[in-house]
């Protein structure tokens, strides 16, 4: 790689202060330091430093998404074949799926990268690696049939309104990838909800997501209803494995768990948020199941048990990769528990109490993003009170 290093060193003066392309220094700097780690030395504070940096944090989040990408591509291909009544090998599924999702990925990175670089150049700040994560997440929460222009618009909205206007990664209030998805959900609902968008194929095959099945019926038992569907196998284990219609990367709870475990072990994502969300989900689902039994409600969603909530819709994906985003979540460990529990509980509430929005996780996380500073506020007040008690001794 010596030639590449030499090339970068050769063009460096053009971008440095006084050079012709001085304005574009952030772009050069980003390319240079992504290709070759920086050799910046410590100049203030400790003379030695930990090997971790934000680039490593962000790239590992992208790495943790790889299983979801591969499985997502396979499942898109599989659903296509299923709708067309073809029998295909997994290689064919992977290939067909990849052909569908690669343009979505390309458009996301192109539009996300454009805005990130533009802001870096105009605002004269370094390119922040966070956009890699945002752009890696967006395709996974889109239906495979999403029009590419909508992907571009949503990514732009997510990056600009969700992040850059606050000052970039580290200053944003809402998870930019979720902002992008929420933007599409409320502006172009036809292409991201309903039962016509989850299977890509030649002429728009219909197939509802698992969550839409109990949400559409009244006075039934959700599990029985799911098992009675003949078009798809909505058994728990099949939904856990992820061979069901849905957004590209959200269907397989198994592979999401693999990514989540990786993030928790590396310490990048807070396991407290994940466990908290799971507890919140279990608690609230128990409550809704109890309500279904004792209040005589006709709401079928109320009868859905917790372990089905876990494997349906975007819950697992949202909790593992979106709720754990360190900047927009709670910043204190105690706060992370509360934040997680509320996300789990709110997901069930939104899904069951208002079945018009079966995708409760996205809204629950965005809502809790807004409340995270308040949660931290109370945790920190607790610390201050404890200190005052100590002072009084």
């Amino acid at each position, binding site marked *: *790689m010596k030639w*590449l*290093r030499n090339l970068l060193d050769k063009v460096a003066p053009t971008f440095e202060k006084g050079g012709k392309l001085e304005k574009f220094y952030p772009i050069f700097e980003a390319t240079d*330091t*992504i*290709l*070759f*780690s*920086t*050799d*910046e*030395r*410590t*100049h*203030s*504070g*400790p*003379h*030695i*430093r*930990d*090997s*971790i*940096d*934000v*680039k*490593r*944090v962000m*790239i*590992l989040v992208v*790495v943790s998404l790889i299983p979801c990408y591969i499985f997502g591509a396979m499942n898109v291909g599989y659903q296509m074949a299923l709708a067309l009544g073809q029998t295909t090998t997994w290689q064919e599924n992977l290939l067909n799926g990849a052909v569908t999702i690669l343009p979505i990925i390309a458009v996301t990175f192109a539009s996300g990268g454009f805005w990130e670089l533009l802001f870096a150049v105009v605002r004269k700040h*370094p390119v*922040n690696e966070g956009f890699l994560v945002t752009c890696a997440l967006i395709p996974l929460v889109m239906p495979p049939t999403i029009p590419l222009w909508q992907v571009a618009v949503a990514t732009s909205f997510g990056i600009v309104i969700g992040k850059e206007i606050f*000052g*970039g*990664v*580290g*200053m944003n209030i809402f998870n930019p990838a979720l902002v992008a998805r929420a933007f599409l959900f409320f502006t172009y609902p036809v292409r991201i909800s309903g039962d016509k968008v989850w299977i890509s194929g030649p002429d728009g095959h219909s197939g509802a997501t698992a969550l839409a099945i109990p949400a559409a019926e009244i006075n039934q038992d959700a599990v029985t209803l799911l098992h009675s569907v003949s078009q798809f196998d909505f058994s728990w284990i099949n939904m856990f494995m992820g061979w069901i219609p849905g957004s590209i990367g959200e269907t397989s709870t198994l592979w999401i768990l693999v990514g989540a475990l990786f993030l928790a*072990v*590396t*310490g*990048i994502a*807070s396991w407290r948020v994940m466990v908290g969300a799971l507890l919140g989900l279990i608690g609230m689902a128990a409550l809704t199941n109890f309500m279904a039994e004792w209040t005589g409600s006709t709401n079928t969603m109320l009868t859905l048990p917790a372990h089905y909530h876990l494997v349906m819709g975007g819950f697992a994906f949202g909790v593992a990769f979106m709720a754990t985003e*360190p*900047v927009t979540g709670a*910043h*204190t*460990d105690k706060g992370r528990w509360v934040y997680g529990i509320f996300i789990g509980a709110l997901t069930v509430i939104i899904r069951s109490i208002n079945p018009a929005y079966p995708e409760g996780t996205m809204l629950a996380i965005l809502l809790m993003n807004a409340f995270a500073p308040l949660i*931290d506020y109370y*945790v*920190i007040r607790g*610390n*201050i009170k*404890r*200190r005052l008690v*100590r*002072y009084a001794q």
Partner: protein
Amino acid sequence: MNNISIKRGHDIRITGVPPKEISSIPGSESVAIIPKSFRGVKPKLLVKEGDQVQIGSPLFFDKTKPNVNWASPANGSIKTIEFGPRRVINKIEITVEGSDAIPGQSFTSEQLSSADRVTVLNRIVDANLFPLIRQRPFNKVANPEEIPRDIFISAVNTAPLSVDLESVIDSDKEAFQAGVTALSRLIKGNVFVTSKNAMDLQNAVVQTISGPHPAGNVGIQIHHTKPLKPHDLVWTVDTQHVIILGKLFLTGVYQPTVVVTVGGSGATNPQTVSANVGANIGVLVSNQDLSNPVRLVSGDVLTGKKVETDQFLGFYDTSVAILSDEVDRPFIGMLAVGSSDTKYSLTNTFMGFGQKLFKFNTAQNGEERAMVPINAWENVLPMDLYPNALFRAILAQDIDEMEQLGLWECDDEDFALCSFACPSKIDVGEVIRDGLDLLEVEG
């Protein structure tokens, strides 16, 4: 005896650990004191170039506390007095000629235990050694006119590559005891001493402390013993300076020697040496091969200052670190798998297990970024406070909030590990220091 157990923190495993045995090195031809390095001190000279001084003669005093003088750490003549911009006194350098010290009153241990406050205080002030005593909050030279609540001495060094204080105390047990006794005469409160193992010590409250760095920092000791309240005042004295004070009382003269470690990943011959206060760095590293690019640090690798061989050991420093200054640029380094030879992280983001020592260099390992709160700071700060919230209160210059969040108990050195671990490469200690400066002026 009470034990303080520290859970959060980290002992950095760096190569070049010096052995405990003291090796001999040549004496410094010249030594120096750096007046501008003392926080909040307005130095006024008492000597001029060419003057003859003895060990213990006053070199300068602090205009804000006129009875606090700085003692000469050597006998000889003033070689140079170097001024910086706006007549800041950069350095007073003394050519060493002989070892005459100004004689003074000595005490037996019985006399010392029954001496009154004024006698003990005047002896320290008259010997020009009061700057050895520092105060918290703000970690600056104390004021002899004030009476502190307690005095804290940490007899444990947990900083990387630091002097093993247990063996230092063992070889000067009597002087350490005398120093502690003298300090105990100065206050109504207690002299608190923390040590690694139980210690038989009179006139002090001894506690053991266990756990990783920063367990040996005096700020952590105070926090876990009797935390500072707003407008509280305590004094702190380094263990080796307690011994210097003890010797002053027992023998009547100032003996300006300290045990200093020379080590680090760039040290070819890590050693522990006995050196003059303010010794020349070049002499301290004279047994090292410095042909590869290295950075020399006076003080420990987390909180020390970068120095060159023609400069001098800091007044409160007892270690010199040598770090390799060669940093390479691996291709697609951010995707590296990593091993215990190439990466060192408190997170599990690289492969690499075990307790192997690591050859650190001066690489920052990344660029400065906005804060990404993944608990990097919290995991290495054994204090009951929220560093993240405190950091933001300081950036916002919100003094009330800083006070409430516990800034009175903080010092930048306790946050050095936070900066070490920070993925965003933020110098947390510097911000804490800014907050303390603001608090001192306006609080």
